């Protein structure tokens, strides 16, 4: 099956920042992404789990598949939002089906 090179960007970010991140992505014309729930985690600011939270706290994972040439504008837009906030960003090489969708 015919596949095409792409990048998979995974951004783990605080839930109250989710809407700001997706708006920044849209602003950078990244209109394809998927948001997954996160149960808990650990990082420099310590361990947490959704059970120990009240209200709209916690984190989410935002996954974007994107053409390689558009990666930089995506990372710039994302960095703007995550900069002062806790969270991590990773990028992986991947192949996608149906490249016309990206």
């Amino acid at each position: 099956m015919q596949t095409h090179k792409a990048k998979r960007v995974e951004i783990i970010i605080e839930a109250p920042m989710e809407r700001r991140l997706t708006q920044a992505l849209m602003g950078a014309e990244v209109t394809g992404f998927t948001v997954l729930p996160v149960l808990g985690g650990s990082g420099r600011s310590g361990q947490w789990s959704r059970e120990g939270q009240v209200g709209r706290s916690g984190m989410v994972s935002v996954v974007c598949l994107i053409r390689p040439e558009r990666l930089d504008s995506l990372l710039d837009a994302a960095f703007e939002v995550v900069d002062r906030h806790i969270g991590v960003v990773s990028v992986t090489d991947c192949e996608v089906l149906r490249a016309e969708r990206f």
Partner: protein
Amino acid sequence: MEGILALAADNLISPIILSFALGLFAALARSDLSVPEAAAKALSIYLLFAIGFKGGVSVARHGVDGTLLLSLLAGVALSFILPFVAFAMLRVLTRLSVTDAAAVAGHYGSISIVTFVAATSVLTSQGIASEGYMVAVAAAMEAPAILSALWLVARSGGSRDMDSDLWREILLNGSIVLLIGAFAIGLITGEEGFARIASFIDAPFQGVLCIFLLDMGLVAGRGLRKVRGVLSVGAFAFGVLMPLAGSLLGLGAGLLLGLSPGGVMLMMTLSASASYIAVPAAMRVALPEANPSIYLTLSLGVTFPFNLTLGIPIYLALAQAATGG
């Protein structure tokens, strides 16, 4: 004094407080007992809807009191002022950075609706009436304190990041909208509306509150377990002294407004309580450098249990003494 102790003792052995204690114990003992997030959120929707609705019905029943508008204004003013009191106390009692201190201060200007609900439960069980619109005052006090916190940071040259989006998020926060909305529904449908849904919002209320407080105890306990060492003795002292200070400001406001003894006590409770839902979320966006463990633990792990157990009986005794009620 004896009256307070008796009331406190009475309060302490209610199913509500014991449920909180059970949750606290389970979390500190690292039991895996947990209330699913969706269930806890559903319970809080129920509580907000019920308390707002009952407030609205009560206003519909007794007519709008002349002091309604003044009480709302007083609530907004208290919410603006209390963070400055808290900030000053924190600078004296602790070594928190300006940002952390401002973030904590913002929480103490805002309110905890569950503390408010627990206070109304005590009033109900003692047969003491209160102004139904105090629910609206609670809603009005949620947000202004956030502004004060940001101003405190900006004044010290710290960054602040307050876009119009954040404003909308704060003012149209789910709990404010639900509280005010349910209040309006109660006001509009009045006695007739109440009759239709009383067996939903009134009969099971105390029991639902037990389960909700079980979960609050679990969350508070998990927080306390993690922060051994994060909080200094001074910070703990703040968590107990600030609600007392806040309650006195609330007492003053309540007396000036000429509220009923129950109303004065609720105004004290609102001033004494600290937010742990609306303000933390706003702080994550506006002051991301502030450490959430500090403000969450103080608000939820120290002040909330203090108010629930000792604070509420104290405020009631003071309110009764001061109003002669």
